[in-house]
């Protein structure tokens, strides 16, 4: 097979990453390109022929469990992680393996929600993976051998890494998980060649750092602010944007008076120094576990008549936001689902909160209106696409939590409340093959928003919830999955169903990607324990 650049030195230069949009045959970062729109210029698969898609190959995982990884594709080779911390190099045309790397770290890691890993970054001839024991490992992309291994944090204290790193020039940027273990979160950059730490931004400031006035006492020491979904990067401003996780303890704000910066925020960091340029906090003093670890999507588009550098963010709290990404200035914010925790946003984008009486339901519930499921933006349609949970409510109950190093630190809990007596409750993370809760309790949607107004343009309603990301292409095809195990193609302009494939009543918990190899456009998606790759019939 044809492999461009093999043996010619570094295959993925900074220049290629900066111009990833110009090589749509590849998928070079977690979200495809630095702008993180999960949009591809490929157009071989189009509305008129999408019904001719056929399954070309599948890959069975060696392990079972929620598979939330998004692969990379580089010149015909797919690089993919499977749980807990395996890396696979796969021929993207046939699905056969070149090599497999198995991480040999400890297995007594502490993770709230399963042994997840969401993927890799690549630079030169090296792929980079964060591990569940909070290391960062560099692996030779040609033979699967580890090149360096750097301890990022102490896993015995509840730190872990599940996020796919982001490479900017010669730096590998990564953040730590552990928001349910009373960690103090950070984002850090490591030299891609040596593995040495270059900079670190604490998502929870110490008393000497700006933002510390939003904390009381020493609550900051276990303030959370985890990082578990990959951010984006704007080379023109040299800023990297990351969504930050919930404050700790999750459900008891009384234990941490103040706004709790920089939890539940998007932070804009100088990519060279890690210095904070600006921040925007979506949910101050959170009591609902509404991590803002969604993907910050960078869009260049006119705003009120003038060219603008925008950042779009569909937040777990149920609001969609548009910010000026040079300054962080709030431009627009509107709920994309029914919410009752806030009546709206003020002129600065701060929520006007309407806390519900104890024991009554808050909308959205703990899992929020959306979550780690990647959104997409198409510059052709000008629409922003959100995988959304509709009608899910929860009752939240704060409780005093005592911090113990390495133990969960939650501050109470919540329960999901079905609106129908005796109804089953949809599982939070993973479901079985039978939907016993029905759409009378909850359903998912793909919501297409006009980002200029925050209004819905169309809704594709699913019977069950969705944890699937969304991919759009230059032929106006939108690909997405859901909890039912269907992989679906919609018309990105209208939301009309164009094609679907039943991948076996398992759950799609990651986002589709697209790439081209040997002149054929592929689209791949992970459902249950299977990665499936489709292309048009020969």
């Amino acid at each position: 097979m044809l492999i461009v650049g093999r043996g010619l030195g570094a295959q993925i230069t900074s220049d290629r990453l900066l111009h990833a949009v110009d090589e749509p045959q590849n998928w070079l970062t977690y979200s495809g390109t630095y702008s993180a729109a999960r949009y591809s210029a490929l157009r071989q698969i189009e509305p008129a022929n999408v019904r001719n898609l056929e399954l070309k190959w599948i890959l069975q995982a060696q392990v079972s469990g929620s598979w939330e990884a998004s692969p990379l594709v580089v010149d015909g080779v797919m690089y993919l992680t499977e749980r807990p911390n395996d890396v696979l190099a796969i021929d993207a045309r046939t699905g056969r393996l070149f090599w497999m790397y198995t991480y040999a770290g400890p297995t007594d890691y502490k993770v709230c929600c399963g042994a997840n890993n969401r993927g890799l970054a690549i630079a030169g001839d090296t792929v980079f993976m964060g591990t569940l024991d909070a290391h960062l490992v560099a692996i030779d992309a040609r033979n699967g051998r580890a090149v360096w291994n750097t301890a990022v944090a102490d896993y015995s204290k509840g730190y872990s890494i599940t996020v796919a790193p982001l490479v900017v020039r010669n730096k590998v940027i990564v953040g730590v998980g552990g928001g349910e273990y009373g960690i103090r979160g950070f984002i850090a950059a490591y030299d891609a060649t040596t593995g040495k730490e270059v900079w670190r931004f604490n998502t929870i400031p110490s008393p000497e750092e700006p933002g510390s006035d939003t904390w009381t006492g020493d609550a900051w020491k276990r303030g959370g602010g985890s990082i578990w979904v990959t951010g984006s990067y704007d080379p023109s401003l040299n800023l990297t944007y990351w969504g930050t996780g919930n404050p700790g303890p999750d459900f008891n704000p009384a234990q941490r008076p103040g706004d709790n910066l920089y939890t539940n925020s998007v932070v804009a960091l100088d990519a060279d120094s890690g210095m904070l340029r600006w921040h925007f906090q979506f949910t101050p003093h959170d009591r609902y576990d509404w991590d803002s670890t969604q993907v910050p999507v960078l869009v260049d588009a006119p705003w009120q008549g003038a060219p603008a550098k925008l950042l779009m963010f569909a937040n777990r709290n149920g609001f969609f936001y548009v910010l000026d990404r040079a300054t962080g200035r709030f431009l627009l914010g509107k709920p994309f689902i029914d919410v009752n925790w806030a009546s709206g946003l003020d002129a600065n984008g701060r929520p006007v909160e309407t806390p519900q009486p104890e024991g009554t339901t808050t909308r959205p519930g703990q899992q929020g209106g959306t979550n780690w499921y990647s959104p997409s933006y198409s510059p052709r349609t000008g629409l922003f696409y959100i995988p959304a949970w509709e009608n899910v409510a929860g009752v939240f109950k704060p409780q005093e939590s005592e911090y113990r190093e390495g133990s969960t630190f939650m501050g109470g809990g919540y329960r999901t409340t079905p609106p129908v007596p005796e109804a089953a409750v949809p599982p939070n993370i993973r479901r079985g093959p039978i939907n016993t809760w029905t759409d009378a309790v909850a359903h998912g949607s793909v919501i297409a928003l006009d980002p200029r107004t925050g209004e819905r343009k169309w809704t594709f309603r699913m019977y069950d919830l969705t944890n699937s990301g969304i991919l759009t292409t230059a032929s106006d095809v939108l690909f997405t999955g859901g909890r039912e195990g269907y992989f679906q193609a919609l018309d990105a302009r209208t939301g009309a169903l164009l094609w679907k494939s039943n991948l076996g009543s398992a759950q799609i918990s990651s986002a589709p990607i697209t790439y081209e190899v040997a002149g054929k456009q592929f689209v791949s998606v992970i459902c249950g324990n299977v990665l499936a790759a489709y292309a048009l019939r020969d």
Partner: protein
Amino acid sequence: MMPAYALVSILVLSAGVAVSGQDHAGTYADADVTAGARVYTALCASCHGTSGAGVGVVDLRRSPLPRASTDAALAAIINNGIPGTGMPAFRLDAADVRVLVAFIRAGLPDAAGGAATGSIERGRAIFEGRGQCLECHRVQEKGSYAGPDLTDIGRTRAATSIQQSLVNPSLVMRPINRPVRAVTRNGRVITGRRLNEDTYTVQIMTDQGRLVSLVKEELREWDVSETSTMPSYRDRLTPDEQNDLVAYLVSLKGTGL
């Protein structure tokens, strides 16, 4: 992050830690079961469901559990998880684990149903006789497939809930069990009980006891009713007879097969 649960550390303080650590299956202090319910709701219910049967074929109400026939084995799974599956290692402290084990063994719905005061034998007679329950329902090898099978209803529904469903069947009917009516393109009418549904298809047990799967876009009409087809027994049975019937239903714990 996206956890499905909440904590727990504080519960330790109120969980009756002083009780001895004996491992006698079947003997669990009520206080432990109650404390364990809180841990379970916070940590486990999001995946395993309030029923204990929320993860695929895993049903925590089974006895013995295939991987955890002893309390020690169950505690080990809670602590260490099951590698390669969705079951994480929770690493709770010993007191939390102990009450959680107590709840899983003794507190899941079949045991949480409250006291049924009637006579099981009289209840059975009503169920199989005058109540005509077998016209629609099934218990083990007797009865119809049209309505929900009640062979293990005592595990999944509490006495109060069963009582409610006798006098006001629509009120506590689970949404999945709502009666459905489909009319196909060629005019065939299908009525029955829903078993499973997704965006494009629905699987049904027909009133005639047949398994039918329908593709929604091929239907001319599709209706889901919130009104149960079961009659109310409020006036058909005396309160004592209702109690007997509830006692019988609560006693139905499945066959263990």
